[in-house]
């Protein structure tokens, strides 16, 4: 009984973070129309920097966030305008760009992870931060995980409110549902798509830092984070923030139960299983509607 509870709590903690990381990808895909296959590699880059800052300068990951989030924003904005806008120019239209952008992002993934591999190789990163046990729902969770979850939900909730409550957030959702109609509302689609891509980059870096607080990781793991984010995006529906939350929790709990009761070696297989199921059965996600 306690082991079920443990698995559930662990699953929910991971799930909340998966929801956040998927929110960044779903914004990039839904609004900028870029399926960013380099997402997990950028996430790992942020996690690596947070670790180094902690180890070399004793900088708390909370402080690292203040440095890494703006940095990630700028890098993603640059990547958007230097790489993807150029592609759009060549392709002539933004629809024709969608397929080639996947290949470009795939290439970008190799560049980012390749550079990091050259520097760090496959070595494992971890640091012990807030490693104190906390009682939660009758189970014991390390404080770092709990903090990561709380921050993930806070970031995600904040991003959601921005999207739903503000004029700019509404414009961003309008681009997602009707990119051709948006200019007639005076919306500069390319500008806001770029800023949304970069905003997704902020969420990506935040997820990376939060994950580094409690999980051991190495550079080659970038691709598994891309995969997990993709699973959640497809299950939750592209551009759907609430869907991402629910799908993230489902993924986290599934992983945790498979690891606990079947075999830890099969968690990735379970992720793939969910991915295939999601692709085959849900064309529009759990809630059937984008961006609600």
């Amino acid at each position, binding site marked *: 009984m306690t082991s079920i509870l443990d698995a559930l709590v662990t699953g929910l903690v991971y799930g909340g973070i998966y929801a956040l990381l998927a929110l960044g990808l779903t914004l990039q895909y839904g609004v900028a129309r870029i399926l960013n296959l380099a997402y997990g590699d950028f996430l790992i880059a942020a996690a690596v920097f947070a670790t180094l800052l902690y180890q070399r300068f004793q900088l708390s990951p909370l402080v690292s966030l203040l440095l890494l989030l703006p940095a990630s924003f700028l890098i993603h904005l640059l990547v958007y305008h230097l790489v993807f806008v150029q592609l759009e120019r060549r392709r002539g239209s933004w629809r024709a760009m969608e397929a080639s952008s996947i290949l470009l992002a795939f290439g970008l993934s190799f560049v980012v992870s390749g550079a990091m591999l050259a520097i760090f190789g496959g070595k494992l990163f971890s640091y012990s931060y807030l490693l104190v046990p906390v009682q939660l729902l009758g189970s014991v969770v390390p404080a770092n995980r709990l903090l990561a979850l709380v921050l993930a939900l806070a970031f995600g909730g904040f991003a959601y409110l921005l999207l739903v409550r503000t004029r700019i957030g509404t414009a961003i959702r309008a681009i997602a*549902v009707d990119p051709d109609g948006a200019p007639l*509302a005076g*919306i500069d689609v390319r500008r806001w798509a770029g800023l949304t891509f970069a905003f997704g980059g902020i969420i990506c870096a935040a997820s990376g830092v939060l994950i580094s607080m409690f999980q051991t990781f190495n550079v080659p793991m970038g691709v598994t984070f891309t995969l997990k984010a993709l699973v959640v995006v497809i299950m939750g529906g592209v551009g759907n923030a609430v869907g991402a939350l629910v799908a993230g929790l489902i993924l986290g709990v599934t992983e945790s139960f498979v690891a606990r009761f079947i075999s830890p070696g099969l968690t990735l297989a379970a992720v793939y299983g969910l991915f295939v199921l999601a692709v085959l059965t849900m064309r529009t996600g759990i809630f059937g509607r984008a961006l609600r």
Partner: protein
Amino acid sequence: MLEIRELTVYYGLHAAIRNVSLQVEPGEIVVVLGANGAGKSTLLRATMGMVRPASGHVLLDGLDLTSLVRRNLTHQIVEQGLILVPERGGTFTDLTVRENLLLGAFPRRARAKEKELLEFALSLFPRLKERWNQRVGTMSGGEQRMVAVARALLSAPRFLLLDEPTLGLAPVLAKQLLRVLPQIAAQGIGVLLVEQNAHLSLAVAQRGAVLSNGELVHASSAAELQDDPAVRAAYLGSQ
């Protein structure tokens, strides 16, 4: 004054409109009549920079917008004070009435006057107040047209272009919708309307013209157009 000068648009080798020139004064309602495929939508879309003209100019109060038009910078053209309610569209159907009107005032030019414009738009279409939080896609065709016109008004336009706003509406609703145009024009907004419904549109317009196979013919006052035998034969049926 909105001035369209010798606008020509090709789709491939086929000229959809040829050398179309047209002027609209502030506060004036001008209607362009034309059959299916005459080039009405093309004329309005080219004016907004949504299709690239092969030649011609668009001027707004003497300011040449042609370079914006040629570079497809529709959002900047909106920022200059031109707005289009496109055929069947002009709303974000996945968003609510409130959100659509919020985005109507997205252009910077619209912000200062947002409150008055919203009041004005809701005075024209009081029904929208009851549908405030309804998703536009779930509303009736007539209500969706209201949202589209209201959204366009919130951009603080100097000139409002309307592409067949009565399309698919029952005659009573079509009449109701066109009846708001004089109230809009009374605010000093110039209205350029393209229509197939000659009866209703000539009744609210001061001037009109006929677009036939991509060329503008019969430009004259609305009253004269109504009496023109050729126009009567083509657009006014036997009535």
